[in-house]
C-alpha cells in the first residue's frame, strides 16, 4: 500500500454545563456572591475552605458553615509566565495556595502581581472582589463581570497593602 498524506481536521469539544451545587458548595458560592468567604467546620474542629461536604478523615457529613476572612497568607505559589486559555489572566500571574484568616486549609486562586519577584511564600494577600450585581433599578455597566456565585467572584488575590 503506497503512502498517503494523513488528513487532520480541527475538532472542537464544548461542554456548556451548568452544575448543581448542593447546599454546602452552594453556601460557599452564595457567600462569594454576597462578598465574603465561608468554610465548613470539620469533625476535628478545623475550618476547611473552600468547604468540603464530608470530613476527609471521618467521612462525616459536615454542616457548620463558618465565615472566614477574605485575606490570608500564601502557602505556596507557582509563577505562570505564559498563561493558557481559560487562566484567570492573559498576562503573567501566580497560582497560589492561600490560607485565609480563620481557615485551617489553603484554597487555590490567582495572585495578580507584575513580576515573580513580588511573590514569596508567607506573604499576605487579600481578595480583589468583582462588583456586586446592581439592583433592579440601577444601571448595568457594559462588559463588567458582576458577582454571581462563582469562584471567579474573587477576581484574584493581591498583596494586602495594594487592596
Amino acid at each position: 500500500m503506497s503512502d498517503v498524506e494523513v488528513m487532520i481536521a480541527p475538532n472542537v469539544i464544548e461542554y456548556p454545563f451548568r452544575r448543581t451545587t448542593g447546599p454546602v458548595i452552594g453556601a460557599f458560592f452564595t457567600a462569594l456572591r454576597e462578598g465574603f468567604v465561608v468554610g465548613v467546620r470539620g469533625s476535628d474542629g478545623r475550618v476547611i475552605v473552600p468547604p468540603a461536604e464530608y470530613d476527609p478523615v471521618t467521612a462525616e457529613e459536615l454542616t457548620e458553615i463558618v465565615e472566614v476572612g477574605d485575606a490570608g497568607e500564601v502557602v505556596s505559589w507557582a509563577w505562570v509566565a505564559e498563561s493558557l486559555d481559560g487562566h484567570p489572566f492573559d498576562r503573567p500571574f501566580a497560582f497560589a495556595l492561600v490560607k485565609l484568616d480563620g481557615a485551617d486549609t489553603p484554597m487555590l486562586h490567582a495572585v495578580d502581581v507584575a513580576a515573580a519577584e513580588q511573590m514569596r511564600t508567607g506573604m499576605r494577600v487579600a481578595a480583589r472582589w468583582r462588583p456586586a450585581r446592581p439592583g433592579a433599578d440601577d444601571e448595568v455597566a457594559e462588559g463588567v463581570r458582576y458577582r454571581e456565585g462563582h469562584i471567579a467572584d474573587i477576581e484574584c488575590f493581591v498583596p494586602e497593602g495594594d487592596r
Partner: protein
Amino acid sequence: MRDIAVISFAQSPQVRRQPDLNEVEMLMPVVRDALAGAGITKDRVDFVCSASSDYLAGQAFSFVMTLDAVGPWPPISESHVDMDGAWAAYEAWVKMQMGHVDVALVYAYGKSSPGDIRRVLTRQLDPYYLGPLWPDSVSLAALQARCGLDAGSFTKADMAEVAARSRRDAKANAWAQLSGDDDPAELLGRDELVSPLHVHDCPPVTDGAAAVVLAAGDVARELCARPAWIRGIDHRIEPHALGLRDLTRSVSTEQAATAAGVADGPVQLAELHAPFTHQELILRSALGLGDDVVVNPSGGALCANAIMTAGLIRLGEAASRVTAGDADRAVAHATSGPCLQQNLVCVLEGE
C-alpha cells in the same frame, strides 16, 4: 493467593506527535509484540483489560474502537479503566486471583498531541472550585514543588540532577522520547517554565502505547523462562482538594508500599512514575528507597510520558529487568491525578 506474573512487555516508540496513526494503528503492533513475547496468540488470552481517556483525543468511548487491535470477535472477556494502564493491570490481577483467568492481556495508550494536554488535564479537577480557574498540570506540580523546596525536603539542584540522570539513562532506551547528556548546572541556568519548575523538571508531551501479558502459576512458568512474579500490589488515593493534603509527602504511596510489602526484602531496582523531577524525590522517600536502589533505568516518565500509559510502562520496564535477570526484586510505581493524588505500588520478584 495465586502466583501471578508479568511474562511479556511491549511498547510503541514514544514520540512527541504521531499524527500518521490512529489509536488502533498505533496500538496493534504493540499488542502483537506483547503476545509474541509470551509466545502466544490471542486465543490463549482469557481476559483483556485496557486503559485510556476519552478526553485526550476528544472522542467519546474511543476505547471501543481501539478494541479492534485485539480482535474482539467472537466476543471476548474485556474491561476498560479510565485510568493509567497500571490500574488495568491491577484489575486483571484481581480477576486472576478469582481463579477464572490464567492469561490476561493489559494494554494502554494515550495520544496527548491532539489537544493541549495541560488544559485537558484540568478537566479531571473538581469542577466547582478549581475547574473554572483552569489550573494546568504544570502549575499544580509547581505548587507542590515549592512546598517541598520551602520545607527543605530537596533543592532545585537535586531536581536538576534527577532530570540529567533520567535523560542519561534514557540513552539506553530505544523507545524513549528524550535522552541525552545534560549538565545539571546548565539546565538550572535556563528560564523557568512555571516557577519553580524548569522545562527539565516537566515531562515531555508524548504519544504512545504499551502492553503487558500476565499469567498465573504454571502457565506463567510454561510461557516464560523467568516470570516477574507480583509479590504485592496495592493502590491508595488521597482527597482531591489540594488544601487537604500534605504536598511535601506522598502518604498514599507510603500506605501502598506498606501493603505491597516493599520493605519486606531488599529492593534492587525501582521504576517510579514521576512525571516531575521533585515527584521522584518525594516518591523515593515515601517508598523508603536507599541510595543503592537503581531508580528509573529506563529514563522514566521524564523521558516519555504518554498519559494513561506511562505507569503501565513502569510495570513493564521493572518486570522486563527481573525477567532479564538484572534484578531479583524490583518495585514498580504508577501515579494518577494532580500532585501524586493516587498511587499504585507493585513488588516484583524473580525465582
